[in-house]
């Protein structure tokens, strides 16, 4: 459903998102099309997830996207913000 972003950063953020969600939720079977909320994610876990992202990529997930969309969309939204911040003239 989502257009696969070609950049290496997008791939990296998607992979990291899956790993973190699997670890935090103790749920090995996590896919990009899953929703954080439906996997049992809640706000305390979302904060934890945000901290992981900030430490590694410099910014957090958009909580609205994380709770209402798929993990792929939450990851891609973060990628888009980071890319825009790195190339402000393109925004």
């Amino acid at each position, binding site marked *: 459903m989502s257009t696969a972003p070609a950049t290496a950063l997008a791939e990296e953020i998607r992979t990291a998102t899956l790993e973190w969600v699997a670890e935090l939720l*103790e749920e090995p079977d996590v896919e990009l099309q899953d929703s954080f909320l439906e996997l049992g994610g809640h706000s305390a876990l979302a904060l934890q997830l945000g901290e992981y992202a900030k430490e590694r990529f410099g910014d957090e997930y958009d909580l609205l996207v994380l709770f209402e969309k798929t993990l792929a969309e939450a990851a891609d939204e973060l990628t888009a913000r980071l890319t825009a911040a790195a190339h402000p003239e393109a925004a």
Partner: protein
Amino acid sequence: MTLPTIAGPRTLRDDDHRVLTDVLAATVERFPDRPALTADGATYTYRRLDTWSDAVAALLAELGVGRGDRVALRMPPGAAAIASMIGIMKAGAAYVPLEVRNPPSRNQYIVSDSAVTAFLGDPAECETGPVPVVPEERITRLLAEPPVAPPAGPGPDPRDTAYIIYTSGTTGRPKGVLVPHGAAATLFAAAQGPFAFDEYDSWLLFHSIAFDFSVWEIWGPLATGARLVVLPPGTSRSPEACMHFIADEGITVLSQTPTAFSAMTSIVLRDQFALPALRYVVFGGEKLTPETVRPWAKQFGLSSPVLVNMYGVTEAAVLSTFHAVSEDDLDTDTLSIGRLLSGSARVVTDTGREAAVGEQGELWLAGPQVADGYLGRPELTAERFPTHTDGIRYYRTGDLVVPRPDGTYGYVGRADLQVKLRGHRIELSDIEVAVQAHQDIADAVVWVHTFKPGDDRLVCAYIVAEGAEDPGTRPLRAHVKELLPSYMHPSSYRALPLPHLPRTVNGKVDRAAVARTWEEERNQTR
């Protein structure tokens, strides 16, 4: 025989609060030659059961058993067990039933805790100490001996304990509920209001004598001159064998837990069984849901037999409310448990005030059916049987109900099975029912697990249905998503490597044991 109907409650009189053995004596006088008991292929008249139990009482008196004593009873369901139970009461003592299939350690605990003065039946591996043991064969032999006079002297008083039944909570040691004669006798007097029971009825003893549903099954007929029919040992495990027995014996009053009834319904519908004699099906022991009765109602309707939903606790003499299931109930989410049989009740919200109509709260029961408390546990008794500011002594049931405008109650569930998670009030059993609705799932337990402080999530442990493959997490997630809002979705699903859920002696799911097995499985896969 009168048509099965359900009428309103009956006004109780002071003398309804009496002794069970006097209830039996009145029946013996009215119907001496009618069949009282069918067991192990033989039938005994009221006169015969009366003289037999007199002989048991005389034997116990010889052994030193008297008023206020307690006598352990461990026998398979049968005529000797019934005669023993009555004989113990005639001797003035309370019976303490032990489930034959219980692990010896549990029976040992009960025997020691209740300090019995005699033991009837087979103690198996249980240490009885110095108390006399009377084997079942000795009780059976009394039948062939010449009648003897019952023990002289005053019999029990309505305030004396009739039986002590042990119940387990989710935590802690089993506790013995002291049920006085008057409380139990009131149940049978009160039941004459709604039910049109008579001496032509045949009641089935389906449940273990260690489970108090059996008190209803045994004394229901003995109070009305009807016939008590004992299901042969082991038969209850096969719904098919049960249905044949019920049909062959012409059972008219059947008491069931919803779980057992569901299993029977599927057999009855599959084999197109006819049960023309059946007049009443009485539900107790678990929450009854519309799903359970719908398939039956579709085939047989709701007028003959009448399906009666009853709510009760051991601490208030077996059954406290009654409600005849109607067509309207089948379309609702929650079935009514109806109105009180006797006494009064309060519904208390979690902030401690009286619940308004339509508002949920804990059911507190008061009146002549309320038990005396827990044997040797004064603190627990004071906590669970408080005397309110109105001066009335209540039993706090731990069950959540909603008072309705017509004076009836809707049943919600156990208070300890209702959780509040991130602002949502969640009934765990509703999630369990949703998971169980998946065709490959036999049973499911859902609870809140604290993964870390602040990280509380719903988790589900389930048992895969016999012959089915484990569907795995993803299909279960999709299935539950179809049925429940997202705040009720478990975050994790885990199959337990067991053929069925661990259960307590009363047939209830042992939630603590489920959580332990779940934890073991989780640690293996981490």
